[in-house]
C-alpha cells in the first residue's frame, strides 16, 4: 500500500490512525493534537489558576505518566504558571508496587518534579498485602480503590496542596456513566462526569484533565513519546458486573468509535437533569470525607477489617464501589495477560 499523507499537515507520512475519529496522522501532528485537546479542555473548563500548586496522583501507570508529561509540556508551552508535583500512594503490595514506585521515582527526575510517597500503612494501619491476607483476593479492588481515593486527598492535605489531578480518561468516565445508570445512582450520576469533583470538608479539589482523552490515544501518546511507565497495574480482578459494563463500552467503541465521547456527553447532560434533591452531598460521620452513606466506604471497610470478620467485609455489592474507579488499570492488566499467553 502506498504511504498515506498526514490528514493534518498533508506532508509527513501518516503512521497513526486516531482511535477517536480514524484520522490518519503523522507522529508529530498526533502528539500536537493530543496535547492541544487537553489544553482546550483545561482552558474551556478554567481548570487552573496561575500560581496554583497541583499534585499529580502518580501511580507509575500510563494514564498518570501521560498526565504528568502533558501537564509539564503545556505548563511550559502556555505559561500556566503551575507549581506541579507528583504524589504517589504505596498500597503495600509486595512485588508489584516496588517496581511502579521505581518508575514514579524516575519520572520525578525526568520531569523535574518533587515527589511524595504516602503509605496505606500510615493512613489506614493496613497494607494491601495484609488486607489480602485477611479477606482473600476477591473483592480486593474495592478496598484498593476506596483507600486510594482518600489517600490522595489526605496526602495532598498533608502537603498543603489543594488540587489533585488524576489520570482518569474518557473510557473511565464513560464506564462510570453506564455503571451509575445501571445502578440507578442519581447522586453519582450528577457528579461522576464533572471534570472537577470534591470541594468537600477537606477543601481538596480533584480533577481529571484527561477526561476527554481516549485510553487508546493515551497508550499511543505514551508510545510515541517513549514515556517511561510501568505496564502491570492492579493484580486483582474487578467485580463481575463492572466487567460487563466495560465489555459493553469496548463493544460500543467497535461499532462507533465516537461512542465513548458520546457517552461522556450524555452523562454531562444527564448530570444537569438530576433533580436537586438527589444531589445533596453528605459527609462521613467518622472521618468527614464526602459520602453518600452515614459512614463512608473507607471507614466501613476498615470497620470490617478491624472487627476481624473477613466474610462480611468482602460481601460488597454492586453499589459499594469507588465512584471513580479507574478500571483502565485492570484493562491494561487484561491486555498484559493476553499478550503473555
Amino acid at each position: 500500500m502506498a504511504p498515506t499523507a498526514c490528514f493534518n499537515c498533508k506532508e509527513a507520512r501518516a503512521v497513526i490512525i486516531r482511535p477517536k475519529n480514524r484520522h490518519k496522522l503523522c507522529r508529530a501532528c498526533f502528539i500536537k493534537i493530543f496535547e492541544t485537546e487537553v489544553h482546550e479542555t483545561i482552558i474551556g473548563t478554567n481548570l487552573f489558576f496561575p500560581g496554583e500548586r497541583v499534585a499529580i496522583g502518580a501511580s507509575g501507570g500510563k494514564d498518570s505518566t501521560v498526565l504528568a508529561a502533558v501537564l509539564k509540556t503545556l505548563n511550559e508551552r502556555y505559561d500556566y504558571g503551575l507549581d506541579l508535583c507528583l504524589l504517589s500512594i504505596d498500597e503495600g503490595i509486595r512485588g508489584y508496587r516496588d517496581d511502579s514506585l521505581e518508575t514514579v521515582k524516575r519520572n520525578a527526575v525526568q520531569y523535574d518534579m518533587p515527589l511524595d510517597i504516602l503509605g496505606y500503612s500510615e493512613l489506614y494501619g493496613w497494607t494491601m498485602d495484609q488486607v489480602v491476607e485477611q479477606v482473600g483476593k476477591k473483592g480486593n479492588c474495592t478496598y484498593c480503590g476506596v483507600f486510594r481515593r482518600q489517600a490522595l486527598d489526605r496526602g495532598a492535605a498533608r502537603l498543603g496542596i489543594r488540587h489533585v489531578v488524576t489520570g482518569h480518561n474518557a473510557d473511565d468516565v464513560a464506564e462510570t456513566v453506564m455503571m451509575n445508570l445501571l445502578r440507578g445512582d442519581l447522586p453519582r450520576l450528577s457528579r461522576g462526569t464533572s471534570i472537577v469533583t470534591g470541594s468537600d470538608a477537606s477543601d481538596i479539589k480533584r480533577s481529571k484533565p484527561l477526561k476527554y482523552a481516549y485510553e487508546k490515544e493515551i497508550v499511543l501518546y505514551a508510545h510515541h513519546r517513549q514515556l517511561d511507565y510501568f505496564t502491570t497495574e492492579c493484580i486483582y480482578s474487578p467485580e463481575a458486573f463492572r466487567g460487563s459494563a466495560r465489555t459493553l463500552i469496548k463493544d460500543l467503541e467497535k461499532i462507533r468509535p465516537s461512542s465513548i465521547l458520546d457517552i461522556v456527553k450524555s452523562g454531562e447532560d444527564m448530570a444537569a437533569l438530576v433533580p436537586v434533591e438527589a444531589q445533596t452531598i453528605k459527609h462521613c460521620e467518622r472521618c468527614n470525607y464526602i459520602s453518600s452513606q452515614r459512614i463512608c466506604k473507607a471507614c466501613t471497610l476498615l470497620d470490617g477489617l478491624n472487627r476481624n470478620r473477613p466474610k462480611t467485609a468482602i460481601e460488597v455489592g454492586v453499589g459499594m464501589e469507588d465512584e471513580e474507579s479507574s478500571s483502565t488499570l485492570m484493562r491494561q492488566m487484561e491486555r498484559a495477560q493476553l499478550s503473555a499467553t
Partner: protein
Amino acid sequence: MPAKELNKPCMECKDAEFELTVRKRQLCSLCFKRFIAHKVQSRLSVYRAFGLDGPKTQLLLPVSLGVSSSVLLHILNTDRQHRLDNGRPVGYDFKILVIEPSTVAATGIPFDQNYEALQKNFPMHTISRIPFHSIFDYAPEMVGIMKEYAGSKFIDDSTRSNEERLAAFRASISTPTSRTDVDTVLLTRLIVEFAKKSGCESIIWGDSDSRLAAKALAGVAKGRGSSLTWQVSDGMSPWGVRFEYPLRDLYKAELLQYESVCAELSDVVIPDQPPSENVLTKNLSIDELMLRYVQNQGAKYPGVMANVARTANKLNPSASDGAPTCALCASLLGNVKGNSGVTVANQAEDNHSSQFCYGCMRSRPDELC
C-alpha cells in the same frame, strides 16, 4: 371452601389451577392477566381524573403488531369494555395507528392477515394504517430537512414517488447504527404528526421495561442523553404531545406470557425475529447491541435492568424553554442548561451553527463511523 379438587391452586383466587408463574407467584391465567393489567392501569390513572360526563382525553396508540404494543392494546381494550359494561368512567378514548411494517423493515414482512385480525378483534376502535413514506404528507418540511441533513452526496429526485424518495434518503445513511437511529427519529416524527392531526393529546407507547432500558442505554451511547426525559420518561415531548410508557413496570418476558394466554392476539401478533447468531459485534447497531445486553444481563441481574428506565424517569425535563432545537429530532441543540462540559465545543467542530443536535450529527451520512 373451594368446591373443586385442585392440584396446584392459583395463589390469588384459589379457585383454578395455576398456569403461570409471575414474580414468584403462581397464578391462573385470569388472575395473571388482572395482575399485568393492573400494572398498566395504575400508570394511566391520570387520565381518569374526570367523572362519567367529564371531557375525554384522546390518546394515540401506535401498534407495531409486535408483542408489546398488541398486549397493551388488549389491556386497554379489556379495561374499557369492562368500564362501559359497568357504567364506570373510562376517562379516555384511544385511536390505533399502524405504520405498515412492510414499509419500515427491509425484510418486507407480510402483515395483511395480522392487520385484518386486528380489525376483526378490536372493531370498536378507529384503526388507521399508513405507510412510512407518508411522512412527506404529514410533515412536508421533512423534504428540505432531509436534504440538508444528508449532505451533498444525497440527491433528492422530486419526480420519484414518496416511497422511492424515502428509500433513497435511508440508503444514504451508511451504518446500521445510524440507519436505526434515523429511522426511529423519522417514525417518531410521523407518529407525532399523525397524533396532532387527529387531535390526540398523548401518545401511549408500548415499550416494555426491558425495551426502555435498552433504549435508555442506546440513547446514552449515541449522545442523546438529554432526550431521555421524553424518549424513556413519561413527559411532554418537544412537539407538545405527551409521551406515556405504561408498560414500564413489565418485563418483555411477562408480556410474552400475557400474549400466550390471549386467544384474541394469536393472529394479530407478528412474532419477534430471533436475534441473528453469527453477527460480528461491530456490524450490530447500537440499539441491537443494547437489546442483547439487557437480555443477557437482565437474566443475571434482574433488578439492575429495571434500574435503568427507573433512573431515567427520575430526571428533570430540561428547563431550556425557548432554546433552539434540532430540525430533525427536536432535541436540544448544544448542552443542557447547567452542563459546562466541553464535548460539543471541543470535539465536533462541525456542530457549530448546525441546525442538528449532537446525536443527529453523529448519525449523519458523512460522519466517519
